[in-house]
């Protein structure tokens, strides 16, 4: 549905210097799927989204929507945003304060190139407002809406034209934590029900993991990895992705050699020898970084069976309600582990640590 190739977008900085906000960005989104651009603030997500929307004119690359080129630097083609027929929800929602809820939602139908009759407009607007649960508020001043309602109105306005592609720029970041969680489910339900192709921008990894069919992790204007949520989380391709998507423990290590099954290696780190998995071929003496998620570090008071087991002491612990975080010291090194809160070992007491080799990912630094 959407293909982006070799996209480069630059801004002109304060002193005239170019700011490369997006570089060689390339990805595709199949029809009906929700694709997420995930990355820290300032990494170029919004820039990429605005380039797709036509609000920025990229320097290089090609963008096609539904098979039609809308931008190509080679052919010097640029379709202006108001002719692209896309729906977009802005981070600030951009609800027009001088209009009612109804007028906000009806605006795209009134100003577009295609003309609608009054009845058609009324029908479509009420239908889309009902979809986002705002039908009773149609005549209300848009400024009288709460944050969550504004967000839904912005969504309704983006959907009313039944666009071929929906663009969402951090649509939940302005809501408080509780509401954010609820809207996350609402959004997912709506997208799956309408089957509308969506590009979603967020810096919140849990949002990305919860909503997406596919995620692109971005850093400094470039895409670091594209994959399904589970893939990105469990098999990060590099240290940045491992660090940004979820919390993790990093250990510097050196490869000693292959170990049995394909993809498994023996490596030496400050904790000693251990077995780890890698998604690319490694050779002895390669320097690697091991990434282990806290929830993949198992703690027990009795010595467990299997490989990758050490003894340490509980250095600190934090009770979080549904789970507990432990800092375990092994020699000089501290590892963070997330366990069930039923583990009651006290600070200073000894404890056993086990890491599943499949969950211990060796990355090229």
């Amino acid at each position: 549905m959407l293909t982006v190739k070799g996209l480069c977008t630059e801004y002109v900085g304060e002193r005239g210097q170019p700011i490369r906000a997006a570089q060689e960005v390339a990805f595709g989104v199949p029809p009906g799927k929700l694709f997420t651009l995930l990355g820290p603030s300032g990494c170029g997500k919004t820039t990429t989204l605005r380039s797709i929307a036509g609000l920025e004119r990229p320097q290089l690359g090609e963008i096609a929507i539904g098979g039609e080129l809308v931008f190509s630097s080679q052919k010097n083609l640029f379709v202006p945003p108001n002719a692209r027929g896309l729906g977009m929800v802005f981070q600030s929602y951009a609800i027009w304060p001088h209009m009612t809820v109804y007028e906000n939602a009806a605006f795209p139908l009134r100003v577009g190139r295609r003309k609608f009759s009054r009845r058609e407009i009324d029908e479509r607007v009420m239908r889309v407002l009902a979809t986002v649960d705002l039908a009773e508020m149609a005549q209300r001043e848009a400024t009288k809406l709460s944050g969550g309602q504004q967000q839904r109105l912005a969504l309704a306005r983006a959907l009313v034209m039944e666009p071929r592609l929906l663009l969402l720029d951090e649509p939940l970041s302005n809501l408080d934590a509780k509401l954010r969680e609820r809207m996350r489910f609402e959004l997912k339900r709506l997208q799956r029900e309408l089957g509308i192709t969506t590009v979603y921008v967020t810096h919140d990894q849990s949002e990305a993991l919860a909503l997406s069919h596919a995620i692109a992790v971005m850093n400094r204007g470039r895409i670091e990895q594209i994959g399904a949520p589970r893939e990105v989380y469990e098999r990060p391709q590099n240290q940045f992705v491992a660090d940004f998507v979820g919390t993790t423990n990093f250990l510097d290590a050196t490869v000693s050699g292959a170990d049995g099954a394909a993809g498994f290696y023996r490596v030496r780190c400050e904790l000693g020898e251990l077995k780890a998995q890698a998604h690319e071929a490694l050779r002895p003496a390669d320097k690697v970084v091991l990434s282990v998620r806290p929830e993949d570090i198992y703690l027990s008071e009795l010595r467990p069976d299997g490989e990758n087991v050490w003894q340490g002491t509980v250095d600190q612990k934090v009770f979080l309600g549904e789970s507990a975080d432990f800092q375990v010291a092994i020699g000089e090194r501290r590892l963070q582990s997330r366990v069930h809160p039923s583990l009651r070992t006290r600070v200073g007491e000894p404890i056993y640590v086990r890491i599943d080799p499949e969950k211990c990912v060796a990355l090229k630094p």
Partner: protein
Amino acid sequence: MQAAGEAAPVFATAAPRFDAKWLIIAACVVLTLYLGMVPLAFLLWQSFFTPQSAAKAAVFTFGNYREAYGSADTWLLFGNSLRFATGAAALSFAIGTLLAWMNERTNTPFKGLFFALSVIPLIIPGILFTVAWILLGSPKIGIINLALQRLFDTDAVFINVYSLGGMVWVDGLHYSPVAFLLMTAAFRAMDPALEESAIMSGASVLQVVRRVTLPLAWPAVFATLLILFVRAIESFEVPALLGLPVGLQVFTSAIYQAVHRYPSQIGLAAAYAVTLLAMTSVGVYLQSRLSSSGSKYATMTGKGFRPRTIDLGPWRYLTMAVFLAYFLFIVVLPFMVLLWSSLQKFYAVPSMEALSRLTLDPYRTIIAYPNLLRAVWNSLLLAVASATIIMLVTAVICWIVVKTRLPGRWLLDNFASLPMVFPGIVLGLAIMILYLTIPAGIYGTIWIMLIAYVTRFMPYGLRYNTTSMLQIHKELEESAAMSGASWTTTFWRIILPLLKPGLVAGWIYIVIVSIRELSSSILLYSPGTEVVSIVIWELWENGQYVELSALGVMLILALFVLVLAAQWLGRQFGIREL
């Protein structure tokens, strides 16, 4: 889905659908450049030529400048202008700062009320304020002199407004509200925590003032002084009414005299005007430099602090008395004297006898005055038309400046602000010369006045619109584009409605200042295109003081109602101050 499919992308770029966007933008840009640049160019050009007449063509000459600068009179003129402007600026600064300090940093009683009243003096047109002060302070008929003479039983003249000191007093007093508003803003922008933290660091009060308060306040103080100086040197009414009768000339009144002499010496007037323009340009330039470097101070101050007020103890009744005296001088006395004079058949100083002769005759006379109805109509027409044109055109201009990344947009901003340096009389002169020279057929019509008003007040419109435009989040506009709206639709249905607070406030402001305008109109009006302020001027020249006062009272009341309506409207639209 279908809708989007229909818009053929190739078509959209290869042959863009005709969009009124470029037409509107081009029209506004051309108009702005034309209004900002052309009169200035003609003024410069004219100052290097001899007068054109039926017999002789204009020839290039330095004669105008030689004549202007060769004579010792000019240096006298220069000195007078400088002394007058410096004095008036210093006086209004001193008054304004004292009042602002009392209002912001002390516990003077009723100061909230005072702040609300502080805009009232601004609605009294300069010519009426000056006339009122003549009635109060003239050596022969001035009420203050007569009262003091009776009190002390002498015939000494106590005050004389027909002097440099009198000019400074009247002009400085009239514009002190401007200083008050500017310095109030400066006091508000200064976070008391900055001073308090200096005290906590062990500094003495004197050290705090020297090392913290003054360096912080300096940009605001200097900018305020410059604004007041430029304003005073442009002032026309006070020097014309108070200086000319006793041969005290400044540049503005000299330009007026050069044009009205027979034969009129337009080249000489232009040479004076160029000098005056140079002086105001330097002032405006310094001030804009200052305000851009001043923003670095602005970011240092936090918002949301409660200004610390000094407890004056019993002295607060003294400061209250200062407030009252000020209000007396600037509003009550001038208005009362006009009111008194408007109720007399012939002007007479207040006395028991005169009190018995109160009459409404002047009101009847002035309402029946032949030109009045047409003048009122002209004033209203010009005020409404220029305010509307300015606000719409500058809305487009400031959209370009604020919202686009068009190269050279800062130039556009500067051109639109250029008329700021034109003193009213210089602008009138430049426009007069321009349309005398090119046969556009608008000289002597109301159109030439409209052009002058639009040019003169364009910078105000730009400023109001810019403040509002900066507050419009760009996503509000972009979401309209994403909805499929063209630029024209977006501008009309999104930008203009969102700009409304600034548009309305600026519109009202321009209407008010247009109705008060005198110094450009005085060179441009002809029989049939008089405006209200010109009628007042004529009445003064004819010595019809009581009719003038009647008209003045009605005008002040009308403007007062307009300001009240504006403030009410402002609250409706959520505008804080006008």
